[in-house]
Every structure is written in C-alpha cells, then in structure tokens.
C-alpha cells in the first residue's frame, strides 16, 4: 500500500475517514480500516501523522485566539416570532407586487400601439433652459395620476416639450425635475446679474465644512438684484436669502472658542493624507488614528519615554487595540525596548470634516488624580507587580500611573530587575 498523503492524515485525525470511504474517495478501493492498518505498521507515516497532529493543534490554538469567549444565544421564541411576522408580511406584498407588475405591463403594452413621438421634439435639457413663464406654470399644473401610478420615461421627457395632438396624458413632473429646472434658472439669472448664488441651506452645509469652506467673496455684502421675470418664486427667494447665514467668515479658532473646546490639530486637507499615521500637533495630545469625516477617533493623551534612550519611534498599534500606543526605543547597548501605553478610558473624539477637537480633563478630575501622585512630584508610577516572561522570550513589566490613569507595559530582552531599573527612568512624555 502507498504511503498515506497529508489530506488523508488530516481526515484520519479529524475522524473523517469513514466519510471519505462512503464517498468512494479512498484510493484503489481501500477502506478506512486499510488506512488505519497501514498507519499502525508504517513508521514513516506514523511520524508524519504526529507532525500533522501538531500542526493541527497549533492551528487550533491560533483559531482560538481569534475566537469569542462566551456566546449565549438569545431566546428562540423571539426569533420564531420575527420569522413568522416576516412571512405574514411577505405574502400580501408578493400579491401586491404581482398585481402592480401586471397593471404596469398592461399599460406599457397599450402604449406600444400608439404612434411614436415626433422627432422635432427637443430634449428636455434644451427646452428647460428656454421655458417661458407660461410654460413653467403649465409644467407645474397638477397632472392626473397615471392609471397604475407608474410614470414611464416617455412621460417625463414630455414635460418640457409642447404637447402633441395625440397626447392625452398631461405631463407629469417629479420634484427632482422641478428642482433641476429651477436651479438652472437661478444659475442663468446669476450669470446675467454677475453675482454668486447663496443657497438657502448654505449655512448648514458650511457649518459642517468649516475647514474646507472657502470664504465667500464679500458674501456679507451681496445685494440681491431684482430677479428677472423668467425666474420662479422659489429661485427669487433663494437670491434674497441673507448671505450672512453662512458662517464662512468665522475662523476655525473662533468656532472652536465658541464651543469652549481645545483644538489640537489644525484643520486642513493635509490631515486626510495622514490616514493611519500618527499625527502629532502638540506634545500633550496624540491622535493615533486619523479618520475620514463622520468617524470617531481615540486619542491617548499620555505616553512615556525612557530617559537617555535614543529618539523614540512612535507607532500606532492598530493591530493591538484602538486605545494603545506603542513606543519603541533603543538603549545604548542596542537593546530594543517596547513601551505600550494603555489608557482605561481614552479620550474619544468625533471628527467633523477634518476638524479634530477634544475636551481637556476637568479641573476637578485633575485635582483628584494629583492627590494620588507621589510626594516627590514624579509621575507616581506604581508597579502592579506584574512581571512575567513572554512567549517570545522577552520579559514584561507592567506599571500603573495613577495620575493619568494609564497602564504602561515595558517589554525587552532584559531581566526583570533590569526592567524595574528602566521603569525608574521612565518619564512622562507629555507637557502637563
């Protein structure tokens, strides 16, 4: 018998030889008993079996690391009720959809028998720009509903074309179409008047976009000219809207001061280029993940350095946790030391466009933590008596800084005593 391949070895370890046998996928008409007998008698295959068993076990360890600990299923009754409710809802909806489709198909089919539209009809885009006030009024006239509520593309195309004799259905205009036409009218009016348009909702948009909004040229002094007669009322109202509603003249600093929050990263498009890169604007604040607008970011406002060590290599550690900062430093001896700073309750910020702001700790809290600090004014590091050997052969010492409620893990190829000595040389890397 040939040696057993690794796939079969794993099937054997997994207890799946019978499944292979039942599927007729063992070679040369062998049975699972034949494979077992071979494994008993062949030392070479047994050795490979043990090696594969170890691989399987180690893979199991890795998978367990990526596994959730406790998973309790919610009550089944709730699930059953949801499923039943969905089925009850789905049935009438299916009927309604069928009826709608049938009616729509019938309507569309009957439209096919009508003569085609005249070629002289201009496109909606061309005609919309030359609508007269009368046509505009006609376009806004209430239209009788189509038989099925279904509005064919043909009907919307007709909105700006003169009705032909065969057309019995009045033009139907949807709201977006109206909006587009009016916006176009407004642009035409602006071009004629030589003034910028200030949309009614510009204030809201600008307040969301403080960083990117360019100041409007003399926007506060824009005098709305008399609207040309072709304009609809709505467009005229937009032009008459006071431009001062847009806070474009408010600087970033002013807007931040108004909210009594402290900026630590200035706004600007360059921040977006720092995606996933440590961004440091001020020494006492670190943002270790720059994100797109609308996301939240976590900052660590404390980090620790070793005195007399080489320039630290600061690094965000997204592979560890969002609240962790990792700092690597090299001692004169060449020993690499890894400092991991972890805060129990890091500062969480919301990013509004590219403006990043954060609140400082309240004075009450600052006084509270100061009371816990050591008498000598040192950071008040307390060894948590947690030193141990890591799986990669390095030692780790864990310390706690009560003043900033920060945990620090020091990892290096050093003894526990040497780590404790290093801990004494630890200084806070902030400017507090």
């Amino acid at each position: 018998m040939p040696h057993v391949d690794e796939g079969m070895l794993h099937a054997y370890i997994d207890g799946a030889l019978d499944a292979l046998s039942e599927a007729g996928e063992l070679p040369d008409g062998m049975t699972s008993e034949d494979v077992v007998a071979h494994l008993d008698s062949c030392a070479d295959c047994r050795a490979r079996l043990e090696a594969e068993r170890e691989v399987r076990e180690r893979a199991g360890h890795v998978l367990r690391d990526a596994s959730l600990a406790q998973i309790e299923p919610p009550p089944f009754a709730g699930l059953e009720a949801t499923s039943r409710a969905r089925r009850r809802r789905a049935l009438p909806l299916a009927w309604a959809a069928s009826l709608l489709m049938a009616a729509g198909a019938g309507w569309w089919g009957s439209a096919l028998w009508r003569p085609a539209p005249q070629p002289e009809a201009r496109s909606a885009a061309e005609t919309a720009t030359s609508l007269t006030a009368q046509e505009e009024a006609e376009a806004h006239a209430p239209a009788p509903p189509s038989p099925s509520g279904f509005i064919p593309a043909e009907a919307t195309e007709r909105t700006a074309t003169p009705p032909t004799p065969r057309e019995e259905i009045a033009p139907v205009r949807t709201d977006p179409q109206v909006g587009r036409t009016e916006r176009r009218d407004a642009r035409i009016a602006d071009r004629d008047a030589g003034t910028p348009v200030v949309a009614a909702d510009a204030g809201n948009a600008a307040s969301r976009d403080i960083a990117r909004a360019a100041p409007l040229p003399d926007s506060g002094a824009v005098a709305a000219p008399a609207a040309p007669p072709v304009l609809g009322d709505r467009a005229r109202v937009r032009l008459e809207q006071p431009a001062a509603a847009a806070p474009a003249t408010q600087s970033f600093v002013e807007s931040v001061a108004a909210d009594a929050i402290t900026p630590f990263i200035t706004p600007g498009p360059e921040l977006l280029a720092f995606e996933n890169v440590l961004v440091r604007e001020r020494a006492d604040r670190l943002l270790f993940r720059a994100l797109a607008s609308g996301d939240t970011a976590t900052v660590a406002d404390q980090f620790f350095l070793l005195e007399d060590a080489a320039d630290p290599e600061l690094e965000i550690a997204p592979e560890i946790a969002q609240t962790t900062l990792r700092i690597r430093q090299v001692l004169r001896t060449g020993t690499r030391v890894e400092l991991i700073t972890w805060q129990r309750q890091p500062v969480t910020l919301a990013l509004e466009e590219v403006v990043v702001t954060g609140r400082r700790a309240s004075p009450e809290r600052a006084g509270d933590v100061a009371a816990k600090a050591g008498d000598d004014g040192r950071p008040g590091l307390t060894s948590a008596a947690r030193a141990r050997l890591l799986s990669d052969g390095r030692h780790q010492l864990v310390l706690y800084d009560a003043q900033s409620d920060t945990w620090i893990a020091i990892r290096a190829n050093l003894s526990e005593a040497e780590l404790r000595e290093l801990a004494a040389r630890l200084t806070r890397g902030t400017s507090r």
Partner: protein
Amino acid sequence: MTDWAAVYRSTYPDLVRYLHRKVWDEERARDLAQEAFTRALGSAGDGALANARAWVFRIAANLAADEARTATRRRRHLTLMTAESDAAATPDPLEAMERAAREAAARAALDQLSERDRETLLLWDAGLSYTEIAQQTGLSVGAVGTTLARARRRLVEAHAGLEAKHAAR
C-alpha cells in the same frame, strides 16, 4: 419536521464564532446569525430539512459575503466603537490588551490564507463535517482533508512569521 429550537441552541454559538471571523465585529456577527436563522426558518417553513445546520451555515456564508462587499465603512466605524466599549468594560486593561493582540495576530494570519483555505478551515472549526463542508464549498470530500491540511499549515506558518517579525522589531 425539523426541531429548529434544538438546531438553534446547538448551532448559534458556532455560527456566531464563524461569522465573527468573517466580519470581525461581534455585534454584527450576532446580528447576521440571527438573520441567518430567521431566513432559514422562513424558507424552510414547517417542512423538514435534511441538514438544517448546514443550511443555516450556507445562508450565513452568503450574508457574510454580502456584508463584506457593502459595509466596509460602517464596519470600520463599528469596530472603533466596539473597541472603545470593550476597553471601558474590561476590568484588567493589560489582559484586554493582550487578548486583543492575540486576536489581531490570529486575524492577520487568517487573512493571509486563500479564500478557499480560510473558508474550509472556518467551517471545520465551526463543527461542520467533511461531507457538509464539501457540499458548501463545492470541493470533493477527499479534497476537504487536503485543503484543511494546507490551510492549517499555512495558518501556523503565517502566525509564526508574524510573531517572529514582531519580536525582531
């Protein structure tokens, strides 16, 4: 008739674990598991299914694939929020940090596997038999063992490589 309550109780934890390794978001994994069961119940009705567990996993795999295609941005946001809430709730920060580090390393190693290898490995780890995995992945039963052998070896190698890289830095 399928005893869905029993299937639910026995399958739910494995299903959530499987989905979590696909979307890397615990809450989302739980939501998807609920949705998979709801859909399975809805489509099966009162009839009997030959293998309800495998059926639920198939639905879940499709849901996870859809999720991966459409929810990148939302997931990133949720991941951040989850990390924050985990951090606040954990009594021992170092323990949490190390657990997160282990999970990140395992995740990175899993991400280095090919789609087929990863899927086969995750389905096996979720408790599906070779026959069920074969039905779900389109592999032959014999190829499941070979695929698993390769996936396990690559997972271990990738993980070891990451650890070595980490230690060398």
